[in-house]
């Protein structure tokens, strides 16, 4: 019984200790503008969280070093959604929105983004997504995607398969989620128009590692091409296993990462994608400046995920905040950034992009960026076709 009191007491002491450890927020005259981020900091997608936060942080550091935007400095606050846990995302978002009172949240992944979107609406906060590619992210209030959705790019995969490989029979292998399903749906639709037939549709779990059952079924369906609706590392695993199991037909897709290349190795040769691609080696001056700065900070070439979130801060938020400050508003106030964004879009304002040229964000939350068809040669992508007015123009 005495022991009981002791334990309860100990717990209370622990609680008190934790409460004390939590530092009070320092009062400052001119507070920095806080930017919220909800990323996959832990779990299987932790790599993405790391890269995304680096991209955004780089932009913030550059801006602060230059004295801020009109004297206002920026600060990034990151919460973790544990690679897709909606509960964690909601709790994190509540903290960002309520305690830190951020005016904007940069999010990633489809599910956590969907989960926090109602909260953003409630608090009049802008949401920018540069990671998730599910078609469910279209047409959500306050939410703007700066990555082309897979369903936008997938039709060009079919175009390429039909025009270049004369494909009649197409097999699909895709993530069993909104993004993958979107690709699969878009491919089926495009096939219907272009006169080919989908002979096998195989969803797979994200991060499945083993695709033997799906590949066996695809092989049995004898396709002319295999189209992937999978992303990230999974692409590398799929290529390795598909080739090992004797699938010799061309394999096309919508995503490629250096990591997938490392995993897939030689089997990646000839893998072709249609994508809004960020190429560190190409583009204009702002691209080069970003790549240089990123390399200096992290000794590594930036991933397109880093580029997307760098772009969020440097090329979208910065001009928006500038406009707010110019008309005497407070960008840190919830609602201001959102309103400015909406005004900008209704004025059909274009934002610059580190992808080269401009990007056009549409009021339904989708984006148009320069698109191209690439394939793997050696261990890098090369441009093999540009997409102009909805048609692929092959490069010699």
């Amino acid at each position, binding site marked *: 019984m005495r022991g009981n009191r002791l334990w*309860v007491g100990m717990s209370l002491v*622990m609680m008190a200790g934790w*409460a004390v450890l939590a530092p009070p927020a320092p009062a400052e005259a001119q507070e920095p503008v806080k930017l919220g981020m909800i990323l996959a900091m832990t779990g299987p997608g932790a790599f993405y969280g790391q890269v995304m936060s680096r991209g955004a942080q780089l932009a913030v550091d550059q801006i602060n070093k230059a004295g801020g935007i009109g004297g206002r400095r920026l600060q990034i606050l990151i919460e973790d959604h544990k690679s*897709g846990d909606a509960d964690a995302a909601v*709790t994190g978002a509540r903290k960002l929105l309520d305690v830190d009172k951020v005016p904007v949240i940069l999010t990633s992944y489809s599910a956590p983004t*969907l989960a926090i979107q109602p909260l953003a609406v409630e608090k009049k906060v802008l949401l920018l997504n540069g990671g998730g590619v599910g078609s469910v992210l279209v047409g959500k209030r306050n939410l703007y995607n700066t990555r082309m959705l897979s369903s936008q790019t997938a039709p060009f995969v079919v175009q390429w398969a039909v025009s270049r490989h004369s494909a009649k029979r197409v097999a699909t292998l895709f993530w069993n989620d909104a993004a993958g399903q979107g690709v699969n749906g878009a491919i089926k639709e495009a096939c219907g128009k272009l006169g080919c037939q989908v002979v096998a549709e195989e969803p797979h779990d994200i991060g499945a590692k083993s695709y033997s059952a799906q590949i066996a079924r695809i092989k049995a369906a004898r396709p002319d091409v295999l189209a992937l609706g999978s992303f990230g590392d999974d692409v590398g695993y799929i290529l390795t296993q598909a080739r090992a199991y004797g699938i010799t037909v061309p394999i096309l897709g919508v995503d490629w990462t250096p990591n997938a290349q490392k995993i897939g190795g030689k089997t990646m040769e000839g893998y072709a994608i249609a994508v809004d691609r960020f190429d560190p080696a190409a583009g204009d001056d702002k691209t080069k400046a970003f790549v240089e700065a990123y390399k200096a900070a992290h000794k590594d070439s930036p991933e397109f995920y880093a580029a997307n979130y760098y772009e969020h801060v440097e090329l979208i938020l910065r001009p928006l905040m500038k406009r707010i400050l110019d008309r005497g508003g407070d960008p840190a106030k919830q609602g201001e950034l959102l309103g400015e964004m909406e005004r900008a879009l209704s004025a059909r304002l274009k934002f610059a992009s580190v992808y080269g040229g401009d990007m056009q964000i549409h009021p339904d939350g989708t984006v148009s960026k320069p698109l191209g068809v690439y394939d793997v040669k050696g261990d890098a992508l090369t441009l093999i076709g540009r997409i102009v007015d909805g048609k692929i123009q092959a490069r010699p």
Partner: protein
Amino acid sequence: MDFWLHVVNMIGLFIMLGVSLNLLLGYGGLVSMAQAAFFGVGAYAAALSARDLGLPFPLTLVVAIVVTTLLAGVVTFPALRVRGEYLILLTLAFQMVIYGLMLSWVDLTAGRTGISGIPRPRLFGKTLVTPAEFLPLIAAGALVTFAIAYRIGESPLGRVLKAMRDDETATLAIGKSVLRYKVLVFCVSGGLAGVAAGLFAHYQAFINPFSFNLDRSIFLVALVVLGGTGNLLGTVAGAILFVGLPEVLRFLQARQDIVDAIRNLVFGLLLVLFMRFRPEGLVPEHARGRRRQGVGQPAPAVSVTGILPSAGPAHDGAGPALVAQGLRKSFGGIKAADDLSLALPRGKVTALVGPNGAGKTTVFNLLTGFLAAEAGTVSLQGEDITRLAPWRTVRLGLARSFQDVRLFERMTVLDNVLVALPEQPGERLGPLFFAPRRTAEAERRNRDQALGSLAFVGLADRAGEIASSLAFGEQKLVALARLIATGADVLLLDEPASGVDLQWVRRILGLIRQLAAAGKTVCIVEHNLEVVTAVADHAYFMEAGRIIAEGRPEELMADPRLADIYFGTSRR
């Protein structure tokens, strides 16, 4: 402020989930690794019925509760057959199947993309959106859930659950259908998880399978165990400590990923350390202030007839109370009962004697339905009871004790006896919630009766102690009081005097004689022929599954043939 209210709401939801699991795990002794799965199914049911069928809020909550209750009912059936590690694994498998369905059955659940746009509930003309607006609803939900669980846990029904947890066989032997209570507690637990689920879906307005994975089930089990099983306040403490406190960590100036990992590290280590040093959890089942029941009350006057409840109708006909004919049972090649017949005369003490391994305990098991006979019949007061389940035979007035007492070790002495009383309204959900006064009155009467039974065996002053803390002899007396409390007219006592000292033997024998004098029909299994002589009117002598002699005990002792069997044939 919203953030902290959100944390409070999450604590509220976890209190509901934890309490629902504690009922199952702490009270019923059934380990479920699938509580998150029930939670998830309920949440999807509420979400889909609100979004796609357009049902209004309170109705969606009802849908969630009904669906989880029914699902729990379905899972119970396989779960009834297994115990221990198998139950852990079975529920774990169920958890994985449900989670897999949530991920893979994309047409229904949208897979990991989740379900968004779940309508916010409207209550009293107001749409609930912010955590502050939800707080009263969730607080009410937590309160109601807690109240229901507490009402069940601390009632005669909860007592049966704890009895089942401590010893299923003994629970059957006091006339409680373990099957019924298992189904009941699974369903109630599922239903309470459904309350949390319905509120959660509307509160978050978005759900995806992530919230209902194995990790969450594990977390819930850990939360309940760390808080203290069998004590709902412990679960509340656990939820506050392990759901609420970590949110404070968000304000540490450290990298989020590390903070989360450190929280888990501490949590895991606490689990290991608690299991080693404080397995009963933060708030133990018998915390201070809860153990005093029954102590200090004056023991009612003890008259033998006054304390002897009677379950069935009064039987005053002539003829034996219990008759068994031609019973057969064999294990492998060994015949444990071989065309065995016996009769127990009303109001007398009959003994079953014989050397070790003669099959005496088997006879008890056959009579009471713990074993199914291959042939033969048993009739009680003229009624055929051969194929009845053990708990039914008790209800009809035939009860047995065990050689190794089998008390409900983590319950108090008084509860051990109380739980055995028949026909308690508080053991059923209906009266428990809708006829509280009748339940309370019955409970008061039952308490007096149980204390009476304890006073009869001379242990009224130990009523508040935990059964396992008693000496073996005292435990035997408690078991006897418990047996009397079943109200059965025919009592089968398996070695009532073995393993206790002489003074205890005398006391027990005296009690047995009193029982017979009060009209009970008693049969004892006994090795010690001296004991038999002292207490029994009539004895059957068994060897190798047969009855080879019967008569007055002195006659049997005088028979050199039986002495040879008992002590072995002398070699010439």
